[in-house]
């Protein structure tokens, strides 16, 4: 990927972080805030491949841990999003996915990250969620991610791919 393309990815991740922490967190939707950052990482991984997905995810996770309110230790979210970027990129990069497939993928990613974050938060001392609350949180996050992914993920992929770079997928 070219430096310019990386810059665009960085800008998209930053924008997603701001929208997610400042705007979506104010929404009237019950439960967790939709994980917009994960959708951007999926969009990057689908069009740019596993390595770009992993690196982009790692950077996104670092940013989430640095930007206030900066919950959790630095490096933890980075590893989570890097794994997401790597897995999505290595399984599905370059494939033309239907809307339903993108939604399903985003739902799986959203639920895994939400439940994983809550469980690690429990280990970490953030208090254990009850099993029911955990399932509800995961299900709501999956729903939000699926709904938003249909719009966000293809748009991110198209935007990043439109920037000149050496390895278009």
């Amino acid at each position, binding site marked *: 990927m070219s430096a310019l393309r990386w810059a665009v990815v960085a800008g998209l991740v930053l924008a997603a972080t701001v929208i997610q922490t400042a705007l979506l967190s*104010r929404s009237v939707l019950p439960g*967790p805030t939709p994980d917009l950052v994960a959708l951007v990482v999926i969009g990057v991984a689908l069009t740019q491949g*596993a390595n770009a997905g*992993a690196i982009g995810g790692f950077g996104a996770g670092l940013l989430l841990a*640095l*930007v206030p309110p900066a919950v959790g230790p630095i*490096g933890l979210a980075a590893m989570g999003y890097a794994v997401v970027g790597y897995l999505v990129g290595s399984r599905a990069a370059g494939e033309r996915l239907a809307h339903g497939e993108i939604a399903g993928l985003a739902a799986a990613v959203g639920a895994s990250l939400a439940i994983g974050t809550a469980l690690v938060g429990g280990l970490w001392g*953030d208090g254990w969620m009850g099993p029911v609350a955990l399932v509800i949180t995961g299900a709501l*996050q999956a729903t939000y991610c699926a709904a938003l992914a249909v719009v966000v993920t293809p748009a991110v992929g198209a935007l990043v791919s439109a920037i000149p770079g050496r390895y278009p997928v």
Partner: protein
Amino acid sequence: MAFLLVLGLTLMFVDLLTDGSAYSGFRSGAAALVTPLQAGATEALDDQQADSALVAENERLRAELAAAGGDQTRLAELEDVLGLVGRSGQAVVAASIVAEDARAGPPTAVVIDRGTADSVTQDQAVLGGGGLIGRVRTATAHSAVVDLITSPDFVAGARLVPSGEAGILRGGGASGTLSLQVFNPNAAITQGDTVVTFGSPGNSPFPPGLAIGTVSEVGQPAGPLRTLPVTPTAAVTKTTVVAVVIPAAQPNPAPTVGAPPTAMQPEPTAGAAPVGADAAVPPSTPSPAAGAGAGEGPAVAP
């Protein structure tokens, strides 16, 4: 990929081992860069900035009123004292919540749009929605991170109104409730009793007498280490405007070190003592605020 995992683990262990201090520069840098964006986005969302000072002052008064626990005589007394708020030495700074991280359930911390440039610093009490909602964890020039009372790390000295019993209040984690451990095993407690802050030395982080919540259940029989569930007064995760309590400026404490402050001496005009404290929490312990009272420094100094 393996490299990234090793890097992530390394970063994480450094963060854990140094308790965050290794990255504090990066964190405050990120705050300085991103919080203006967060604040701008929030402002665009709801244009409530003009009212926020009034709303914040109102929050403070509500928090103190709630501490009266509905007791009518005390309420009258409180209304009297509320007139002194302007002179009480404890200013409030209005702030908006501009960001939070709720990817996986209720947030444990929020970001506000006021910082050290507005006298908001570490370990100050934050009010909202009629009660205490948290304390300032860190502050940069124009933003601060507030740990919520529902966060599991939260601990505060507390008192019950009207009984005056003391205890320790802890955040309950993801369930959104708090728990109060009462010191006196034989304390007479009824459902609906108000829990207020005990107060900290120098009013930091907590001035005494701020409403935290109400006892929601008295199921457990009296006994040692009795722990009661407490419902927060404030709708902690639904609050958007908050008031940060700025403790009165401390006189230089150096000359009085070692000399017991004449704390029981009553102060005729409010001084630094907050309203709820004197009205709602009469008993025994010397008000920590009194040591900071004006005019005492010279009296105690040799």
